[in-house]
């Protein structure tokens, strides 16, 4: 007599979908939980006929879900940080609206310093974000901001 066939995937879905979705909401947040859930279920469905042992379906599904959650975190880390606008020309009209002449001086800074100062103080970006936006290192971003401020201080004195 042959061994019992795998249960229809529908019953796997019915039994575990809610628990997986709850787990993923905790793991990646509600806005990305469904995407992660769909990826998990599709991977499971794809691999299902080759699954030799159906005794721990729940453990198998959660292993896939954890992997998908890790992928989501990695993708999030790689995603470009939304910055004000890395093109300094386009960012010109987004300088803070003040009339003390400060931002006119900023416009006169060399390109790298200008970008860095605008991102740091007009865009309120962190150094890792500025570095990413300018395709440079954090040290170099810090350096550009520092030199830009030094120049401004000199000019405004």
């Amino acid at each position, binding site marked *: 007599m042959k061994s019992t066939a795998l249960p*229809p*995937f529908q019953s796997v879905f019915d039994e575990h979908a*809610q628990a997986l979705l709850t787990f993923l909401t905790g793991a990646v947040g509600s806005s990305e939980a469904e995407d992660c859930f769909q990826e998990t279920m599709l991977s499971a*469905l794809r691999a299902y006929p080759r699954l030799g042992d159906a005794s721990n379906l729940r453990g198998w599904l959660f292993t896939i879900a954890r992997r998908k959650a890790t992928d989501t975190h990695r993708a999030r880390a790689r995603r470009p940080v939304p910055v004000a606008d890395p093109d300094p020309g386009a960012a010109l009209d987004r300088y803070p609206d003040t009339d003390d002449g400060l931002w006119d001086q900023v416009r006169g800074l060399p390109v790298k310093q200008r970008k860095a100062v605008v991102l740091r103080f007009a865009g309120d970006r962190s150094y890792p974000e500025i570095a990413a936006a300018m395709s440079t290192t954090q040290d170099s971003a810090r350096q550009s901001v520092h030199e830009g401020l030094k120049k401004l201080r000199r000019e405004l004195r």
Partner: protein
Amino acid sequence: MTVDQAVTTRFLERAEAKGLLDVAVTTMDSPLGTLLLMATPKGLVRIAFESENREDVFDEVARQLSPRILEAPRRLDPVRRELDRYFAGTLRDFEVPIDWSLSGSFARKVLRRTARIPYGSVASYGEVAVGVGSPRGARAVGNALGSNPIPVVVPCHRVVLTGGAIGGYGGGLPRKRWLLALETGVPATSREGAPTG
């Protein structure tokens, strides 16, 4: 408890788009009781009456075709529409595509031959045997018809014993009688008390 219907629907759509929905399944009410319907991307592959144990049917399909079986009623909409019209007496010939994968080569020959018996008429097991080139194979024909995976649509109810006795039926003789009465135009009132068990 399961997830929101919209989540399930999106899952089915993506599974279908990725070619992972091997077997779609749904049920429908009929004068012969609830029918379990299954279709692959190729076509209708299985119909089961309530008299068949549902787990056994799933087991058979999971083993012989694929365990990627999902409740996806949409793929079976055309089948349901044709069956509704057939049971209402307004459809004589089914046109939905058939997937013969659950039948071996001899059974397939027998079932294809059976599908050509016109609506409202009958043939004997021996006649079908002759039709498939096995004039001494009436018994084998009976076995093949008894394991017809797609009753009603593949009309094994149109095969009877020589001399007019009704013969056997996988779904039980009351269903066979009901189907033959439907097709020979016996008024609906005489068909009441259709077997649903």
